[in-house]
């Protein structure tokens, strides 16, 4: 019945195919919601008209996802997930497979660019409060995508079986060793062996080409469905659905995604490809950041490289891990204590105060408690690194500002965001370098700033002086 009610498809161009095409579309539409999908997600999905530069990166992330999947399929045709053959098979692709080098560089450059566009996409969300009500689930699903992406990159990086592939995986899997009681067993279970070996390579390959991509695709679909349910945010952080044309019922400040944003995003893709092309064709290693020099040496389980660094997109978190030294624990404990005091003095609810004090006491006990009971700093390093990636999930509830967009937020919030960006970059840079005393100190200071941005957000966003949001979007 529902199908019968559907309007015939309006084809706006004339020609001999007109009748046949419209007939075909009607035939499909009576069996599959093709036109309603088209309308809901493209032709009649109303997006704010004032999207700026920062709004290109969502569609670009989708573009890179497709690029990675397509190039990945072709790489899989020649790659051998076998410790004895993996390295040589990659070189075979680079040398003997027609255009193999192009496919491989597209994939390796694409991996780094995936993170570049996703980080910019996330930063856009941070700036304009895209995680705020009613978009909490869009944000949470997005963060799940980010975690999957990290897993995907981590598993994929082992596959070329170079020295950095091998030792990077060794270092990261060994982190699980640090988990009290179950750690060592868990690490062996993950590797399938006592060291990273053929079994590890095989299972990482399975995760990289099947498990995680499936999850990624499903999550991306959910991300877009959730977004289209609530509608896109915009640089002003005001809801365009509040002001609608009384005749059509469409938001006055909205424009149909297709054709407006499809043509705009096409321009974005072309500009992206120009930047991407410059790196791919003229500097595919990108100074050792996209393809690490050491990774041109086949994996050697008996030869540990003097300096092991993960690829650049993991280095902020790697820095946090390395910053957590024995000396750092006292400051960490003091930080927890100060945070409990802050909650105790500013929150009226006695249950919250008691809970905070209890959690704080437990944390401090295991950080600086009696010898033998306090956990190894390495455990705390792993925990901090984990919290550093997961804390983004809480943003919708940490931000208490009356306005969404940075445009109308006050000087404290703007400074906090700027400091956060600086700390992310500094931690990232430090993570690529070897450790010195000064660098560790810097990493510790910026680790504090990194976490303060999130943990103090409920206070500074509320205390900050905001400007009133406009009724309608501005340019």
């Amino acid at each position, binding site marked *: 019945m529902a199908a019968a009610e559907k309007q015939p498809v309006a084809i706006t161009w004339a020609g001999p195919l007109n009748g046949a095409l419209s007939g075909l579309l009607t035939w499909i539409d009576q069996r599959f919601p093709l036109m309603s999908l088209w309308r809901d997600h493209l032709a009649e999905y109303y997006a704010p008209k004032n999207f700026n530069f920062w709004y290109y990166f969502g569609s670009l992330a989708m573009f890179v996802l497709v690029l990675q999947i397509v190039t990945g399929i072709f790489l899989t045709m020649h790659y051998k997930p076998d410790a004895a053959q993996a390295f040589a098979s990659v070189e075979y692709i680079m*040398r003997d497979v027609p255009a193999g080098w192009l496919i491989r560089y597209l994939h390796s450059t694409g991996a780094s660019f995936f993170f570049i566009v996703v980080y910019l996409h996330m930063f856009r969300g941070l700036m304009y409060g895209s995680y705020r009500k009613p978009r909490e689930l869009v944000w949470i699903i997005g963060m799940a995508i980010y975690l999957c992406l990290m897993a995907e990159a981590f598993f994929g990086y082992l596959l070329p079986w170079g020295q950095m592939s091998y030792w990077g995986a060794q270092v990261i899997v060994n982190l699980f060793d640090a988990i009290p009681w179950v750690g060592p067993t868990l690490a062996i279970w993950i590797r399938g062996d006592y060291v990273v070996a053929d079994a590890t390579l095989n299972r990482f390959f399975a995760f990289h080409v099947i498990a995680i991509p499936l999850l990624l695709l499903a999550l991306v679909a959910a991300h877009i469905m959730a977004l289209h349910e609530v509608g896109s945010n915009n640089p002003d952080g005001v809801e365009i659905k509040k002001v609608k044309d009384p005749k059509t019922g469409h938001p006055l400040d909205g424009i149909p995604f297709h054709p*407006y944003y499809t043509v705009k995003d096409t321009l974005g893709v*072309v500009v992206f*490809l*120009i930047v991407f092309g410059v790196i791919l*064709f003229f500097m595919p*290693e990108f100074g050792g950041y996209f393809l690490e020099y050491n990774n041109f040496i086949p994996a050697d389980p008996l030869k540990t490289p003097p300096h092991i660094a993960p690829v650049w997109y993991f280095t902020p978190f790697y820095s946090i891990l390395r910053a957590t030294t024995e000396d750092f624990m006292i400051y960490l404990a003091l930080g927890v204590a100060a945070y409990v005091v802050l909650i105790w003095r500013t929150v009226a609810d006695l249950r919250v105060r008691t809970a905070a004090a209890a959690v704080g006491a437990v944390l401090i006990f295991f950080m600086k408690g009696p010898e033998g009971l306090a956990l190894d700093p390495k455990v705390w390093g792993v925990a901090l690194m984990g919290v550093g990636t997961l804390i983004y999930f809480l943003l919708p509830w940490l931000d208490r500002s009356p306005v969404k967009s940075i445009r109308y937020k006050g000087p404290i919030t703007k400074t906090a965001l700027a400091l956060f960006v600086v700390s992310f970059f500094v931690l990232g840079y430090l993570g690529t370098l070897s450790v010195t005393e000064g660098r560790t100190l810097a990493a510790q200071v910026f680790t504090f700033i990194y976490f303060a941005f999130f943990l103090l957000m409920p206070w500074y966003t509320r205390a900050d002086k905001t400007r009133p949001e406009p009724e309608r979007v501005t340019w």
Partner: protein
Amino acid sequence: MLACLLLTAPLVAVAAEGVKLDRLPADVSPHDAISLQRGAHVYVNYCLGCHSAAYMRYERLRDFGLTESQIRDNLIFTGAKVGDLMKIAMDPKESKEWFGAPPPDLTLIARSRASGAGSGADWLYSYLRGFYRDPSRPTGWNNTVFPNVAMPHVLWQLQGEQVLRTEVRAIPRGSKGEVEKHELQRLVLEKPGSMSAAEYDRMVADLVNFLVYMGEPSRQFRIELGIYVLMFLGVMFVFAYLLKKEYWKDVH
């Protein structure tokens, strides 16, 4: 003659954080087929005995103008076919016993030796010119770029024998005649080889040119293709920009 050699001999400051690398001369071009052919010739004569290039096929040497028969007649000393990979017969277990470490495969050496200090080519160019006599080493050789390297100086008959001399130089600092003492280590050619220093440097440069090529044979094509792709994208940008402008002219 000797004075001239001293002047051209590279100055190396061996410090804790590593050596300053000499740059590969700028006139060494990946388009120079003669240089690449010479480099390949040196490689198969002096390197391939111990160092495989196991991801590289002999036939790929056609990239810089060699014919299949030229490759077969001049560059293959084993029973290998032109389509075969450039492997070696040495057993890595045995070579490990002989040298302490099996000689590494060199297909990708120019890529893996790149670092913050310089490109892989710079490293190789400095390394192959950095051998000096050191009686304390089992091979009798040491290297300024790769201290205590396991490899003896294979090209010594060509280059001759260098020694490492330490000189203390007083550099005036400030106005009151203060001096700062600098320890400089300098490679000095003691016994000339069959080549002059300039000839040897040129030969090493050609070999490095070949090693860079071998690290990524598709590099030249990659760069050429990149120029066309970017030109195409430039045209596409104009159309995409105009299309966007046309559609958006009514959005205010």
